[in-house]
């Protein structure tokens, strides 16, 4: 564990040095603020406070942005060191490969957490200031930040796995873009197509919600939606959320980082520098 912290410390320095931390925070801040203001129109019609609407908009934003930021940090984790030629030396030191990945994960996750807290926090504060906030909408904001970090963790470890499996950093970057596209865009399109074809049959009733929640991006969306009625109302996802038990989405989103980490470790162990 001491060695994992040593790795985390160096990785944190690197993230600060190459401006990653600043860039990620600025991106989160800019998009959150923009969405909060743009999405403030329907407040009156839905009868909820502005922070609730803002959280619903930011949930949609986070589905796209959290995986993207995480993959951009993760794809370089193993392949970058190998391309540079510094991996062999690192592995000659008495740190296990799981320890190395854990150290990188701690640093990357901390950076994501900082970006999420500042970005969503600032947008939430602005929304609350102008449009009011209640206990429930504050809870929803906290949940959004925590689940966004979890979603980031999923795609960080997936990025590590891709990084270890691919032949170089460039290939890892390409694979990461593909994974992002599949999980965030194509998966939902495919499901939508299947539901339309099925036109309200057994698939739509029984299977579709489970297939949907198996995708971490959708699990993230469902968790945020199901936990807050008003968010569900303003994001229009109440239907799918009500068909599943309450534990399904949290379980999916908690299981993914753990399984992904094991996958990344297994892939990293096969790497011969």
């Amino acid at each position, binding site marked *: 564990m*001491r*060695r994992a*912290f*040593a*790795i985390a*410390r*160096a990785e944190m*320095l*690197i993230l600060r*040095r*190459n401006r990653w931390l600043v860039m990620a925070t600025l991106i989160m801040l800019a998009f959150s603020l923009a969405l909060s203001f743009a999405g403030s129109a329907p407040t009156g019609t839905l009868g909820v406070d502005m922070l609730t609407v803002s959280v619903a908009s930011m949930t949609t934003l986070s589905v796209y942005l959290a995986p993207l930021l995480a993959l951009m940090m993760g794809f370089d984790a193993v392949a970058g*060191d190998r391309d*540079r*030629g*510094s991996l*062999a*030396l*690192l*592995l*000659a*030191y*008495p*740190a296990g490969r799981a320890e190395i990945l854990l150290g990188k994960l701690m640093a990357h996750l901390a950076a994501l957490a900082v970006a999420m807290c500042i970005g969503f926090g600032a947008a939430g504060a602005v929304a609350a200031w102008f449009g009011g906030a209640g206990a429930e909408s504050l809870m929803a904001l906290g949940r959004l930040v925590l689940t966004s970090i979890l979603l980031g963790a999923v795609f960080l470890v997936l990025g590590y796995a891709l990084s270890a499996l691919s032949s170089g950093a460039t290939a890892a970057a390409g694979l990461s873009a593909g994974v992002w596209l599949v999980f965030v865009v194509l998966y939902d399109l495919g499901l939508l197509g299947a539901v339309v074809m099925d036109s309200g049959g057994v698939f739509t009733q029984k299977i579709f919600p489970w297939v949907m929640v198996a995708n971490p991006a959708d699990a993230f969306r469902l968790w945020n939606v199901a936990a807050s009625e008003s968010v569900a109302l303003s994001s229009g996802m109440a239907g799918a959320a009500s068909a599943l038990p309450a534990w399904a989405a949290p379980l999916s989103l908690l299981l993914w980082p753990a399984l992904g980490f094991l996958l990344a470790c297994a892939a990293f162990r096969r790497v*011969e*520098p």
Partner: protein
Amino acid sequence: MDNRNVPPGGTAGQRPTAPLGRALHAHPAAGPSPQCSKSPLQIRALDKFRGKTQVLHGIDLDIAPGERLALLGHNGAGKSTLIKAVLGLIRHEGGSIRICGAAPGSAAARAATAFLPEAVSFHPALTGHEQLALFARLAGEKADIGALLERVGLGEAMHRRIGAYSKGMRQRLGLAQVLLGRPKLALLDEPTSGLDPISRQDLYAIINELAEQGAAVLIASHALTEVEARTDRIAILRKGVKVADDTLAGLSAQAGLPVRLRVQASGAEADRIAVETGGRRINGASVEILCRPQDKMEELRKIVAMGDAVADIDMVPPRLEDLYRHYSGEDRK
């Protein structure tokens, strides 16, 4: 006392250097294990395959504490593969490797081993000091990072980013991490590539210090003239087979390579000398004679007997370069 740790000319040894022991170790190092005091590195019948091609064939190799071994061979002869197998970075298919009695890649083996990769590189965003601090934490050593970087000549650059370092500076940083934590076995892959002559002197001075502290040092190299005078033993790999493993003198004796006598004739006597000695005219006034080491004195007496016809004699014993050519198979027809 033997003199192997005194570099030729004494230049490197005379540099004012901080005593390593004090700079590096704030806490007393654990005593060497019994296997370490006998044989830090023990390789037996090592086989390694890449796909279907065998890249290492039954390698046996031992290095004693304090011994400096030069591992020579062409590109692709298996030097780096052998080092990676010892580090446990790649699996081997047959034979065994023991580092201080431990399996390669085990925690004990990694703690006992220091490694300098060929063309070493680091993350460009970290400073030299930060990078070395990371390595010290990974190794569990409480080393004086600043003193260590001063020692390798990076005192002024230690808080600059590695991205701004020259190749030689990166190599020095690589060397600094080798010195962390009193290794029992140091594996140096082409340590002098990219270094200027002064830096090379420094590097060998540091290697000598490592050996004096009892580390077994393996130097994989192409720079034959360098390692010739600065190592205790020479092993040569050819296409994954160890074809030689002895001291320079031992290799010379086994190879039986000829001694080269170069006779400079006075006046126009060169032709006569060439005919009488069976030598070869190499320019207007010189004759080159190749003879077996045991015939050397006989030849010399013949030449001396020629009296005034001979102006000068140079005698060149076989160099490592000749031996390397011999053992690595270049002059085997």
